[in-house]
C-alpha cells in the first residue's frame, strides 16, 4: 500500500524531469545571444575554437542528445564562463552552503513558529496571544528583500553587532538565516495556534483534562501531535519557498550558494550552469515535498495512501 504510493510518486517524476530538461534546454538555446557574445575582442577564429570545444557548432538536436547522454553519466558538463570548472564542481561547492542556509532557516522557522504559536494557544486573547500574532502579521506581509536589508541596516550598520556579508564564521549565518526563516516562522505560528485551539475542543482532550492533567501536560502529551499536522503539511510549500527565497537572500548577503550561481549564470548565458542548477532546484523541491508527505502519513494515522 505504502510502497505503491511511493512508486507512483517516483513514476510521476520521470515525465516532469524530462519536461524540465527539455523546456530549459530549448528556452535558453532559442533565445538571442550566447555565452560568448559579450566577450568583446574575440576573433572569429577563437570564437570558432570555443564553439567547437563546447560542441556549440553541432546541430541543436545532437547537442540535446549529448546533454542527455552526459546527464545519464552524472556529468553536467563544463561551465562556459568559469574557466576550467565543471558544473559538478560548482554545485559541489555551492550546494552545501545553500543546504546549510536552508536548514538553519527552517530550524528558526519551526522553533520560533511553534513556540510562539503554542504560547498564543495556551493563553488565547491575552498579551501572550496578541504580541506573537501581531509579529506574525508583520512576518507574512514583509518580503524577504525588505526584512533582510532592514536587519542589515539595524544590526549590521547601526549597532554593528553582526557582519553583513560573507559565509565564514557562525556570526555570518545569523542574519541570512533569520531573514529567510522569518516569514515561515510567522506563518507556522499562526498554523500552530489554529491547530492547537481547534484540537482543544476535541473529546480526548476533555478526557485528559478530566483525568486531572495540567494544561502543560495536555499540550505536550496530547495536543501537539494532532495540532501540528497543519504545520507539517505546510513544511512542503515552506521548503520550496525557502529554496526560492534563498535566491534573494544569497544576493543580499553575498553568499556563494546555488542561488547566486543560478542568477549569475542566467544573466551571463552560462548554459550548462543554468541547466545544472535548475535541475538541481527542481529535484530538491520534489524531494522535499515527497519527504513531507511521508512524515505526514506517519504522524496522522488516518491518512492512508492507497
Amino acid at each position: 500500500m505504502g510502497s505503491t504510493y511511493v512508486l507512483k510518486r517516483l513514476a510521476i517524476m520521470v515525465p516532469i524531469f524530462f519536461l524540465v530538461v527539455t523546456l530549459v534546454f530549448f528556452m535558453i538555446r532559442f533565445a538571442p545571444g550566447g555565452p560568448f557574445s559579450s566577450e568583446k575582442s574575440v576573433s572569429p577564429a577563437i570564437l570558432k575554437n570555443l564553439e567547437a570545444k563546447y560542441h556549440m557548432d553541432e546541430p541543436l538536436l545532437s547537442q540535446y542528445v549529448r546533454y542527455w547522454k552526459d546527464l545519464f553519466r552524472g556529468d553536467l558538463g563544463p561551465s562556459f564562463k568559469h574557466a576550467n570548472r565543471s558544473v559538478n564542481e560548482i554545485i559541489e561547492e555551492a550546494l552545501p552552503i545553500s543546504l546549510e542556509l536552508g536548514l538553519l532557516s527552517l530550524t528558526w522557522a519551526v522553533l520560533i513558529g511553534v513556540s510562539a504559536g503554542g504560547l498564543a494557544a495556551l493563553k488565547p486573547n491575552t498579551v501572550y496571544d496578541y504580541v506573537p500574532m501581531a509579529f506574525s502579521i508583520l512576518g507574512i506581509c514583509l518580503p524577504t528583500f525588505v526584512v533582510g536589508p532592514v536587519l542589515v541596516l539595524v544590526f549590521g550598520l547601526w549597532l554593528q553587532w553582526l557582519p553583513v556579508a560573507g559565509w565564514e564564521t557562525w556570526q555570518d549565518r545569523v542574519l541570512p538565516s533569520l531573514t529567510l526563516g522569518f516569514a515561515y516562522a510567522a506563518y507556522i505560528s499562526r498554523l500552530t495556534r489554529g491547530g492547537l485551539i481547534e484540537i482543544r475542543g476535541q473529546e480526548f482532550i476533555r478526557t485528559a483534562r478530566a483525568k486531572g492533567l495540567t494544561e502543560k501536560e495536555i499540550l505536550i502529551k496530547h495536543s501537539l501531535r494532532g495540532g501540528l499536522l497543519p504545520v507539517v503539511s505546510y513544511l512542503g510549500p515552506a521548503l520550496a519557498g525557502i529554496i526560492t527565497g534563498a535566491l534573494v537572500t544569497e544576493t543580499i548577503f553575498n553568499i556563494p550558494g546555488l542561488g547566486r550561481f543560478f542568477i549569475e549564470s542566467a544573466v551571463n548565458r552560462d548554459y550548462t550552469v543554468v541547466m545544472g542548477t535548475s535541475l538541481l532546484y527542481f529535484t530538491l523541491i520534489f524531494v522535499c515535498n515527497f519527504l513531507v508527505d511521508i512524515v505526514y502519513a506517519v504522524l496522522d494515522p488516518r491518512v492512508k495512501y492507497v
Partner: protein
Amino acid sequence: MSNSLWTDALHRLKKNKLALLGASFLILELMIFFLIPVLARLGYEAQDLELTFAAPSPVHWFGTDSLGRDLFSRVIFGGRISLTVGLLASLVSALVGVVYGSLSGFLGGKIDNSMMRIVDVLYALPFIFLVIILMVYFGRNFILLFVALGLTQWLTMARIVRGQVLSLRHKEFIEAANSLGLRQRDIVLKHLIPNTLGPVIVYLTLTVPSVILEEAFLSYLGLGIQAPLASWGTLIKEGVDVMDLAPWTLFFPAFFLSATLFSLNFLGDGLRDALDPKGARD
C-alpha cells in the same frame, strides 16, 4: 439580481476588522493613484540635482533619491505599475484557470481525470525558475512579464473551479433547472457560473498579492521592470543600495508594498470567511 448570498456575505465582511482595514487602505491607495496628475506635481523622472538624498520635507513628502527625483511621485508611479502587473497577471491566471477548471469539471470522466493529472504534474514544476530564465533570455518586457507570472498561478484556480462545478452539477437546483427544461447554456450562465463566482473572487483577491510579490522579487533581482519605468520592487532595490545614507528611500516603497500585500491578503481571507461561513477559521 438581489441575492441573499451576497447581502449576507457583505454583512459578515463588515464585522471583520482586518478585512475592512485592508479594504479601506486599498480604496485610499487607488484614489491616490488616480489623482496622480493633481498630487504628483513632479514627474517620476524629474530631477533636481541640487537636492539629492533630501530628507522628507513639505516639498518632497517622501524625500528624494540618489538622482534627486521626488520619491513620493516615484512610489505612486511604481505602485501603479506593481498593481497593474498584479491585476493583469491575476486576470490571466483566472481566465486560464476558470476555462480549464470548468471544462474539466463539466466534461467529467476520463477527460477530467487526465486534465487534473496534468495539473498535478505542473504543480511540481518550479515555475519561478522558468520565469527567471524566460525574463533573462527574452527581453524584460512588460507583457511577457505579466503573462508569464499569470501562467504560474492558474493551477490552484483550475482546481477550485473544477471542484465547484463538479459539486454543483448534481445539486437539486441544477436538476430542477434541468427538469424545468432550461437550455444547457442558461443553466451554465445563470446557475453554474454565479455559484462559482464566490470562490473565484476570493482566490483572485489572494492571487493579486502573490503576483505583486513575485514581480517585486524579480524586479529586486533586476529581472523585472526595467528603467526608466519602476515598480515597488525596483524602488526597494534602489533604496537598499543607499539605505545607510538615506533610509527613507527604502522605507517608503517597502511600506507601501507591505501594506498593500497585507490589505489584499486580509481582504481575501475576509471574503473567504464571508462567502463560506461554514469554512470560517479561527
